[in-house]
Structure formats: C-alpha cells, structure tokens
C-alpha cells in the first residue's frame, strides 16, 4: 500500500463538517446580542483552537519521546503523528486571530488585558510582568513557531528517508538529534503557553498543577483521536501491519494516561484544599456550585467510563470497544477544556456587565464577598467598605481577618448563578463548532497523509513494529 488516497466521500464529510462548524462559529458571534465583546464566539474559538493545537502538540511530544526512547512499535503509524504535528501551522493562524483580538480589544476574555483593572488591582499588577499582550504574543508565536520548525524538519527527514534511506540509518540518527532537544523544549514551553492561554482566564487564580493537568488531558485526547483515525484507516484497507497488538498498546496509553489525568485532577484540588490555600479555592467553589454537570461530568467521562471500559484486557484489543472508549474520552477531554474555560469567561463577563450597569446588585455584592472584592473595590465608590473588607478577608490577604472571614461567611459567600446557554453546559452551537473543528483537523491531517507513503518502510524500526507483540 502506497500513499493514502483521500476519497471524495471522506473529503465531503470532513470538509462539510468544517464548513458547518465555520458557519456556526460565525453564528456564535451574533448570539447573546454580542454580549461582553462577543464572549461566546471568542471563547469557542479559543477553546477549540487550544484543544486541537494541544492534540497536535502532544503528537509531537509522543513522537519525540518514543524516538528518543528507542521505541519501535509505533513506527508503522508515525506518519499519522507527523501529520498531526503539521497542524501547528493552521493552529498558529487560529491563535493569530486571538492575538489580533487581544491587541485591538475585540475580545475581553483576559481580565489582565484590561489596563484599568490592572492599575487598581494588586494581584493583576503583580502578575502583569508575565500576563501581558507582549508576552502572550511572543510566547504563542515564538514557541509554536519553534515547535513547528522541529516537527516539520523531522517530517522532512523522515520522508526523505523513504527515498534515500540507507542501511546505515543516518536519517534516523538525524531525527534523533532533533527529537531529543525538542523534548526538552516541549516540556518547558508548553507550561508557559498553557498558563497564558487558559489558566490566565481565571486571572487571579493559579495552580501549580495546571500545566500537568492540561497536558494529561491533551495526551489522552491525542491518543483517542489516533486510535479512532487508525481504526478508520484500517477499515479502508491501509496499514495491513497494524493489528490488535498495536491497538492494545495504544489502549494501555489511553487507560494509563486517563488514570494519570485523574491523579492530577484530584491533586490540583487536594493541594489547595488540604494546604488551606483559601484564596485559590474559588476555582472549585464556582465550578462545584454553578457547574456541577461540567465538574462531575468531567470525572464521569474521563475517569469512571474509561476506567471500567478499558480495565479488561480484551476491551483494548477489540476495535468496537476501543473505538467506543476513545470516542467517550475524546469528547470528555474537550468537555474538560470547556470546564476550564467557560466558567472563567463567564465570571469575567459578570464583572464586565456589572461594571457597565448598576452597583447595588445583590449578585455583585456576593461575588465580592466570595473573594473578588479587590477587582473592583478601589475603583468602585458605590461599594460599602464592609463588603470590601470581607472580600479581602476571604481572599486571605488581610491576615488578621482571615479566620473570621472563613468562619462566619462560609454559607453567605456562596454564589449560585442561573443557567446560561453556552456556559453552564455546552450548547448545540458549541457541539457543532467542536465537530466543525474536528472536521477541519481531519481534513488537514488526511490531506497531509496523501503527500507521503503511509508506511515508512526504510525506518530501522519498521520491521520491529511489524512483529510487535504485547
């Protein structure tokens, strides 16, 4: 079997999905009356861009890690991961749109980009050395460009190996020389960009586990998509050498990293909860109170479901069950990112609408008490001093007030927000945009696969991959 042939039916399906997704994305610009600088549109764009860039990034990571570790079993389908990695270029374009929005003020997702808020907010001012448009732009373009340089060089050498590869395997040695430093670069830069892209949506909040958490999430999503794509390609008659053994190993990755994700999911909570880091509990408080479907559904989709489906040996070896589990966790980790992004965006939205509107609002007052007092209090002369103090106490900045603030204000500081389409749970628009991005991603990946022979027959590990046995 030589190159992949992108059938017109597959083109219609993936391209059609991408087109529908684009239409829905544009539609989401106009829903909610463009509330909060079209917050719903921008967060949908950010959510899906980051999710698919992350998948592409994780494919690079797996590729570099396996190559450096002398792994042979994955070599048969390494073109698929190379193709995933090439999506970084369109991904950079998508992030470019968000960067343009950042500079022109077209969106207001990032509270730290509001110069007025930063000027009066000690926390934001303190963080502004890192959370600023220059860093955001530089990190996004610089780091993604660096990743793209490495993966495109690796792909170039890998494809050249098919034509000019020798038994001395000097191509493989060259790929290794790129893969090893690439691994280090990926390890450090991913944390920096994920803090910028997603964690800073909760501008006051931070968690040392966040980069791990997002990375684990993306690794599972990448493995799930790889499994589903390989099952599709096998059903079309490609990859005759890939059998239940390879899927068994991919299934183990899916299972193991799902458990790792759960470990990090819990640890992020545990460190804050058990360490009495009161000011950081806000992330969980808002999500548990107002987004129980997101918060607990996340655990159901990404831990309970894969844990029980994939625990048995044979479910990892059967295409049906493996595809089913992959589809669940693939959606599950998209859902996980929804949980990271949307509640944070809604909070920013709440502040924006209240800034524009009246001050005597009950919801606003309770929000302040819940620990957001200092966002507004200084600029907000309409607020009672008591409310301001409460806010500080709950945040744990006023040391002498902290204990009292925690004790007396426990029940009264909880805020219950009403249901809001596109924020509380993913709406039809969000699902449609997700499928659209998926279609676009697959269209790109499948077109990339047509450009080089699917099986790297001259890779030194190709033979080992054929005889892989778990």
């Amino acid at each position: 079997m030589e190159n992949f042939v992108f059938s017109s039916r597959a083109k219609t399906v993936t391209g059609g999905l991408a087109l529908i997704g684009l239409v829905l994305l544009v539609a989401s610009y106009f829903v909610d009356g463009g509330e909060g600088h079209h917050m719903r549109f921008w967060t949908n764009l950010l959510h899906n861009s980051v999710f698919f860039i992350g998948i592409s990034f994780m494919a690079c990571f797996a590729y570099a890690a396996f190559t450096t570790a002398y792994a042979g079993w994955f070599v048969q389908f390494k073109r698929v991961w190379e193709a995933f990695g090439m999506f970084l270029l369109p991904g950079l374009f998508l992030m470019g749109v968000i960067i343009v929005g950042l500079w022109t003020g077209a969106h207001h997702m990032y509270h730290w980009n509001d110069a007025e808020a930063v000027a009066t907010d000690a926390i934001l001012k303190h963080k502004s050395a890192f959370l600023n448009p220059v860093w955001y732009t530089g990190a996004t373009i610089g780091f993604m460009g660096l990743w793209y340089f490495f993966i495109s060089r690796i792909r170039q050498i890998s494809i050249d190996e098919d034509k000019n590869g020798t038994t001395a395997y000097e191509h493989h040695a060259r790929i290794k020389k790129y893969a090893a430093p690439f691994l280090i670069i990926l390890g450090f830069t991913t944390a920096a960009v994920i803090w910028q892209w997603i964690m800073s949506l909760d501008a006051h909040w931070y968690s040392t586990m966040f980069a791990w958490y997002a990375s684990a999430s993306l690794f599972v999503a990448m493995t799930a998509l790889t499994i589903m794509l390989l099952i599709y390609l096998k059903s079309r008659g490609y990859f005759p050498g890939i059998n239940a053994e390879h899927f068994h190993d991919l299934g183990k990755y899916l299972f193991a990293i799902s458990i790792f994700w759960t470990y990090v999911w819990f640890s992020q909570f545990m460190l804050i909860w058990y360490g009495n880091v009161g000011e950081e509990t806000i992330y969980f408080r808002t999500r548990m109170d107002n987004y129980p479907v997101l918060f607990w559904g996340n655990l159901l989709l990404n831990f309970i479901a894969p844990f029980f489906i994939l625990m048995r040996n044979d479910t990892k070896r059967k295409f049906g069950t493996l595809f089913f589990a992959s589809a669940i966790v693939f959606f599950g980790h998209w859902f996980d990112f929804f949980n990271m992004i949307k509640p944070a965006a809604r909070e920013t939205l709440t502040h924006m609408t209240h800034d524009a509107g009246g001050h005597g609002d009950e919801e606003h007052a309770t929000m302040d008490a819940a620990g957001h007092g200092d966002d507004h209090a200084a600029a907000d002369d309409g607020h009672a001093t008591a409310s301001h103090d409460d806010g500080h106490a709950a945040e744990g900045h006023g040391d002498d007030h902290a204990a009292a603030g925690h004790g007396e204000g426990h029940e009264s500081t909880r805020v219950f927000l009403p249901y809001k389409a596109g924020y509380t749970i993913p709406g039809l628009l969000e699902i449609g945009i997700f499928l659209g991005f998926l279609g676009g991603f697959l269209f790109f990946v499948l077109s990339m696969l047509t450009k080089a022979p699917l099986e790297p027959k001259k890779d030194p590990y190709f033979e080992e991959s054929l005889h892989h046995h778990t």
Partner: protein
Amino acid sequence: MAEVMSTERNILFGLYDDEVKLLDAVKAANAAHLNIDEVYTPFPVHGLDPLLGLEESRLHIAGFIFGTIGCLFGFGFMTWVFTRDWPIIFGGKPYWSVPAFIPITFELTVLFAAVGMVLVFYIICGLGPGAEPRRLHDRITDDKFCIAFDATDLASGAVDDLKGYFSKTGAESVHSKMVPA
C-alpha cells in the same frame, strides 16, 4: 485405564537454548498434532499462550475482587475512625473529610489487590513456604526452555517419534523423568 491408576507419570522433555527455537518447535508440534503436556520457560515468552491454546488467566478477577474489598475497607475504616471511634479535627476540616481519605483508599485498594493476587496465585500453583518445589530440570529456572510430553502410556514407537521430533526441532538434550501424578 480401567486398571489401577498409576501414581507416577513418565515425562519426556527436551531442552532448548533459545525462545525462537522453542516457538518454532511448538508450531511444529501443533502441525504434527503432538499433544504437548506442558511448556516451561525461565521468563514469559511472547506469543506462546495462543500457540498452546491457553485461555486468558482469570487471576485478575481475583485482583478486582480483592481491590474492591480493599477500597471499601480503607474508606469504611477511616469513616468509622474519624466519625465514630475517635473524631479529630485536622486543619479545620470536617470529621468526614472525603478528599483526605482518597489517597489512603487508593493505596489500600492496590495493596489488597496485589497481596490477594499473590496469595491466590500461590494457592493455585501449590507454592509457598514449605512447599516441595516440583521442577523437571534445574536449568529451566535459569536459561533453558523446555517442552514436556506425557510418555506414561506411550508405546516405544511413539516415544521414538517424539525423540525424532526433538532432534529435528533443535533440542539441546532430551530427558525422561518420573514425576508424581
């Protein structure tokens, strides 16, 4: 076998020095419809189980059951201790602080599953302290791979066939040994 049951079995076995030779020999035995009694290897050999037609081990079912017991025991015990027996406040947390129980519950799940599986494995295989080791040849636990046939009721012609099979498939040496049935 209407007469008296024999209390000993005569095992005819060949030793191989390489796992690839062993796998090829098992394939040859299957092709010749030879009835292999058992195969002994110093380490797990990939691809041997399907060739011998072995079913998947059911040991992990025991593991799941023991794990579930450990999970419930750990969580239940901590719940009892911290709500009924000896409630203590840690760091201002409630008595029944579930998140704090999770790591210990997890560890007890793993501990029960692991220890339980080892015990079940020992009982099934008749291993353990004081058990008499039953091995055909000392070097099977070191660097030799063994295919064994039950030659108790075989005619001498059939035994010669087996010896011919061993030499043809590259066995290093062929031995015969009486073992308890």
